[in-house]
């Protein structure tokens, strides 16, 4: 799991979501459903069993009108690097059948659906609830089957699925680059569906190691933070917010703790990696 491949430069694909720009419109969710063949049911009222690879959480500052402020937090899989940044993300190490994979060349955590036997240990391990179980067999309205994405396999009942940072798009971009005799991908060659669909450009995506990619500088911004940083999961999804209360809601702090100080320390530690 910790082997470093010799033939290619290691990437660390990640996402930066500007919460000041997010309007909570849900376009990212819709795009994700269409791109990744995420099934849905006629009755989706039980949200605890809804399949979605990215969901938008609504958070408020807890103050009464007229001081109420609201923030929308889109939450895909956080693509954790895990403790010590070695790919031992919470879900990868626990999977008993190696159905969850951490790709050392990209840092992307993916799920091998045909290997998963549905024990759901990865779901228990994930603090972000990013993993979803197929409680039913997928069914699409008849005509909709014609619009399924042929690059993404549909999943069957009884297995776990999750956001893959549209890994099939990475594979396509790599193939194209190979044919053109290139090793490196341009920033716009590999973008996730949610990032492209966001009407306010709140979601940016790219290689966190590459200074030419916008996520490089944005993830190092003073207002950048990650969810539940204190758990040492080392997510590759960063958030930006100018509002202190939003940054405070991203993690747990004891009474009397200076959360900005703790967050700043974590931010600097992440930047040095």
């Amino acid at each position, binding site marked *: 799991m910790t082997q470093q491949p010799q033939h290619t430069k290691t990437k660390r694909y990640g996402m930066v979501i500007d919460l000041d720009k997010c309007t909570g419109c849900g376009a990212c969710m819709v795009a994700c459903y269409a791109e990744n063949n995420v099934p849905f049911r006629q009755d989706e009222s039980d949200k605890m*069993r809804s399949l979605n690879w990215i969901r938008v959480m609504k958070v408020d500052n807890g103050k009464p009108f007229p001081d109420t402020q609201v923030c929308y937090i889109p939450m895909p899989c956080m693509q954790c690097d895990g403790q010590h940044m070695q790919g031992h993300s*919470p879900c990868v*190490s626990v*999977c008993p059948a190696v159905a969850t994979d951490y790709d050392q060349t990209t840092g992307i955590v993916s799920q091998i659906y045909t290997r998963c036997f549905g024990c759901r240990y990865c779901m228990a391990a994930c603090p972000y609830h990013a993993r*979803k*179980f197929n409680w039913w067999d997928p069914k699409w309205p008849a005509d909709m089957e014609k619009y399924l994405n042929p690059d993404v396999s549909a999943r069957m009942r009884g297995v776990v699925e999750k956001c893959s940072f549209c890994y099939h798009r990475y594979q396509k971009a790599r193939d194209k680059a190979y044919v053109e005799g290139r090793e490196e991908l341009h920033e716009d060659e590999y973008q996730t569906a949610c990032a492209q669909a966001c009407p306010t450009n709140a979601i940016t995506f790219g290689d966190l190691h590459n200074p030419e990619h916008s996520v490089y500088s944005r993830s190092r911004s003073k207002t950048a933070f990650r969810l539940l940083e204190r758990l040492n999961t080392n997510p590759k999804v960063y958030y930006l917010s100018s509002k202190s209360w939003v940054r*405070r809601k991203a993690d747990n702090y004891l009474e009397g703790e200076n959360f900005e100080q703790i967050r700043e320390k974590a931010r600097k530690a992440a930047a040095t990696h």
Partner: protein
Amino acid sequence: MTTPAIPEGVKRCPTRQFTLWLAVVGAVLLWGVYAMFLIWYKGLNQTGMNDAYGFALWIWADLAVIALGGGAFFSGFLTYIIGKKELKSIINYAVIIGFICYSSALLILALDIGQPLRGWFIFWHANVHSMLTEVAFCLSCYFAVLTIEFIPLVLENPKLDRIPFLHHLSHNLHEVMAVFAATGVFLSFFHQGSLGGVAGVLYGRPFAFREGLLIWPWTFFLFTWSAAAVGPCFTMLVTWLTEKITQKKLVRPEAFQLLAKISGWMLLTYMIAKIADTWYWAAVTAPSKGFSLMDFYSSNPVYGIWILIAELVICGIVPALILITRKGRENKPLLVTAAILAVLGVCINRWVMVLQVMAAPLLPFQDWYMYMPTWQEVATTILPVAYGAILISLAHRYLPVFPHEKELNPGQ
């Protein structure tokens, strides 16, 4: 009445009464089998689980029965390795109870996976980093050991014993039983421990996560220890219940006394370790992740601080103190109360390490997740109880489970 299939010199109830009893328990069993069929046919949507509650009633039942079945390996260890001859009176029964617990655990595990036909992937594509892999391997191996330990007893049925080959096989298996007992202890240490590790390694779940020794979190050792402490209590409890139902004395009092004494000291030392672990977790581990102790015991309708007190004090320290004192052990009602409390304590421990872990919110803008099992989950959890009752009934009727039964019931 006596038939050739019933061991010589012991009295059993009439066939009609026995059949009626089997029919009643069998009806409960069939209810569970129907629910099992629904789950395998329609999938896990038949349960009350959801994406926040990936682990629920079944995983608790698994952890609980395996802990309670720990009486088999620990009694075997005391009897065959340490040489406590007094326990020969109860060791057969401990093995049967262990066999029931472990076969039930395997059945529940087979139900609890989304793709049951791929269950073998856990062996074929084994991930050596996963605690669940260790559980699967050790559990399966230990179940095989328990089966081998159970076979000689089955072969001692009067009808089977008349066949020379089976008679000699049984005799030879008895001769080498210490080897299997030792293997069972070794395997049990790892699977009981790895079941503790299943929760303890979840560093994304501060309620469950524990530091530890090398790759093993402290829960690894605590689970093994608690199973060794409480498993014998469960064996005693089932034996006492069997004595009440059959209205016979089945086990020599000194076996009870010795098992209770050892169990008591194991429980007391376990409780000291468990309290130290809880204190360190509450004072160091959880605060380092931004949580205070009361964050895990407030703002929800079920999990208050009462559950911690119930586990550590009422169902931990209290039964331990009863069992380590001679007066407590020799007073039968007190002994049984202590055994019940200890069994409840380990069940609460397994419950919180599964269900409370899932329930506790992690992000400050999330609420507690609550879960209610469906009747299918409940029926399949009761199914092993009915199966156990049937197997115990058959074993008690047709096998010489209790070697001292004849001597303890001279009038019959």
